[in-house]
């Protein structure tokens, strides 16, 4: 999201929205960590790239929740 240069309250609000929504999601951080690990293993296998050269981010499409 793009904000006006000095609109710091919107930055806080967007960050809080994500934090507050992921609070109520029913998943364990252990499961998410495991999912990321498996995906990165898969990516390294196909692209022959070590895991520390890329990053996995998971976003739930329906409501743009980043987990």
């Amino acid at each position: 999201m793009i904000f006006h240069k000095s609109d710091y309250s919107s930055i806080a609000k967007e960050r809080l929205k994500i934090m507050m929504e992921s609070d109520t999601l029913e998943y364990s951080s252990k499961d998410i960590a495991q999912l990321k690990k498996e995906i990165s293993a898969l990516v390294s296998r196909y692209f022959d790239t070590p895991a520390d050269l890329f990053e996995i981010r998971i976003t739930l499409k329906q409501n743009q929740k980043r987990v």
Partner: protein
Amino acid sequence: MGEIIVFTSGKGGVGKTTTIANIGAGLSQLDKKVVMLDTDMGLRNLDVVMGLEDRINYNLLDLLENRCRLNQALIKDKRFPNLFLIPASLKNVPLGQYERAFAILTEQLKSEFDYCLIDCPAGIDQGFHFATSVADRAIILITPHISAVKDASRVLHLLNGTKINKVELIINEYDEKLVRKKYMLSKNDIEELFDIPVLGTIPHDYKVIISQNKGIPVVTMHSKATRRFMYLSKQMITDCSCAEGAYAYDFS
């Protein structure tokens, strides 16, 4: 029948004790009979903020363990028409075992007072569950800091599952100037994030620290904060009979 209102926040240092002291004093000036309960066992402070620390003989733990009668533990603040305090104990004890006794005590207080204001300890441990277990209504104190807002959202989540049926927010350390510059989260931002009403805001006011140094509630002085606390006290009463729905937060 009175109302039991717990003041909670999750994060410490956002102004729970200051707010209770001043809203308690404010409500008593509006002809309500008020008792303030400090449940922050081991770290009691409400008595100090009120300047009543020299008048303590018995405390909440003595009451819960039947070592004294209610009248012996109630400290009357003589500067206000109908304001009483029950201080916390100096001893920090596990509170789980006292929940039943606490429920009985607060039922009794409800029949004798218009408002029973509970000062909840910071954090979301046993003390939090103890303090919130008996309340009908909760007021979550926050400051516009991202950490305080985050913690408050956890607290709101945890209140789901208690018998509390009404939750409102009060924003402390609110600075209109910074909000206009978009440096600080606004009342509307916060209302939108939580989807519960903001009862009011309290500005930063140096008179608060002066009043606490002297051991008197700031509502007895002339200041910005005094006007806000008196406004908030009135809001708490009028809000009570509100039936528009906009002010009632429904957990279902």
